């Protein structure tokens, strides 16, 4: 009936619910845009007719065409947005270099978006953790070991974590402490204030969920 091509695009994406990126349906998109143009032209002429000749009975038809236009717009926007979400997932699962067959499925604008996203992510990662930056796309799962080692950068004296243990923070001494959430967030705060530096087992992310 109406907006059939637009819903086809949505169904195409919905079929691949695991996040894979299908080929960019340029044809389908073009057909939807053509349908929108045709509806718009008809509505324009009808609105003029209704205004000039006072034909109020045209209004339901105008309303119907307007609904179709909004529907097509919604489908196209959702299609493009969902594809961007999938492409973003590719950066996190695959890395910054995509294989040729995946790149083939993306249109020129999506490739451009991907390279800009890569750049934003890279500059964000560089800004974390002091001079070297922090690669947050590694180590996305929590660590297996129960303890992390921390080396003190400054003399801080005695420090009490919320589970009761008191640690002595002296410059360049290494301290072994529990990995569970409360002490690690406390240590993360200390890291931010450059009091300690995490040395092992993971020199990158502490066991907190990595959010984008």
């Amino acid at each position, binding site marked *: 009936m109406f907006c059939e091509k637009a819903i086809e695009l949505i169904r195409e994406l*919905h079929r691949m619910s695991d*996040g894979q990126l299908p080929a960019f349906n340029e044809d389908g998109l073009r057909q939807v845009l053509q349908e929108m143009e045709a509806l718009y032209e008809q509505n324009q002429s*009808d609105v003029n007719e209704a205004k000039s000749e006072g034909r109020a009975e045209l209004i*339901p038809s105008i309303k119907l065409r307007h*609904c179709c236009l909004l529907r097509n717009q919604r*489908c196209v926007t959702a299609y493009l947005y969902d594809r961007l*979400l999938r492409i973003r997932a590719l950066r996190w699962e695959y890395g910054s270099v995509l*294989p040729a*067959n995946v790149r083939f499925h993306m249109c020129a604008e999506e490739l451009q978006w991907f390279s800009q996203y890569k750049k934003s992510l890279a500059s964000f990662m560089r800004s974390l953790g002091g001079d070297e930056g922090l690669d947050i796309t590694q180590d996305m799962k929590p660590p*297996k070991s129960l303890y992390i080692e921390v080396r003190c950068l400054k003399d801080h004296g005695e420090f009490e974590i919320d589970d009761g243990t008191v640690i002595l923070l002296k410059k360049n001494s290494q301290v072994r402490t529990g990995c569970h959430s409360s002490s690690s967030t406390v240590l993360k705060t200390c890291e931010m204030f450059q009091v300690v530096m995490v040395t092992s087992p993971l020199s990158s992310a502490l066991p907190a969920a990595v959010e984008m």
Partner: protein
Amino acid sequence: MDTQSYFPVPPGVGMEENFLSLDDILLSHERLPIRTECTFPQLGFLEKSIPESPGTKMELPLWLTKGLYERKRKVVSVELPKVYKEGWRTVFNADPNVVDLHKMGPYYYGLGSQMLHFDSPENPEIAQTLLQTFIARFRRTMDSSQNAYNEDTSAFVERLDCLEKALFRSGQSGLNGFQSWEKGQASQLTASSLVLNYRKRKITDVQP
């Protein structure tokens, strides 16, 4: 458990739809029985589908019905689909667990929530039935999703509505994640499933 990187826009809750949610778009494509209350002249290529005379019964998709519906001016009047009428409501009130919700329209809860937009006098009863049905069926869905490990669950899943299927799936993924953690597989490095799928397809691309 696989680290999830693809987060699609979830469907809206209750009477709200999420604009960009694929599930909500497919839900609003479902057809409703309506009756036209006025004429739609000069529709051109759409003319064949919309009748000339008012008062004709036909089926329109939900998105169009929502767009055309107006409380004061009569453009379309919406009838309740069979599943939300008195007859089926008593069935649901009696025993919701025996009903095949997928056959009743795969979006039973979603469409039911959207029907409340059309100011039917039976709205409170419809809302009540939807809620009670969900509550009654939820126990079974949750139980099965948490206890069916490495089994063929298709016979159970095919009678579930889309919302229940999503709940079942997330329950299963939690169960699988827990089991793999118990076996010590959680710390093993595995290729992401996304990457594996792309590799698989590569071979079929090469073949003519």
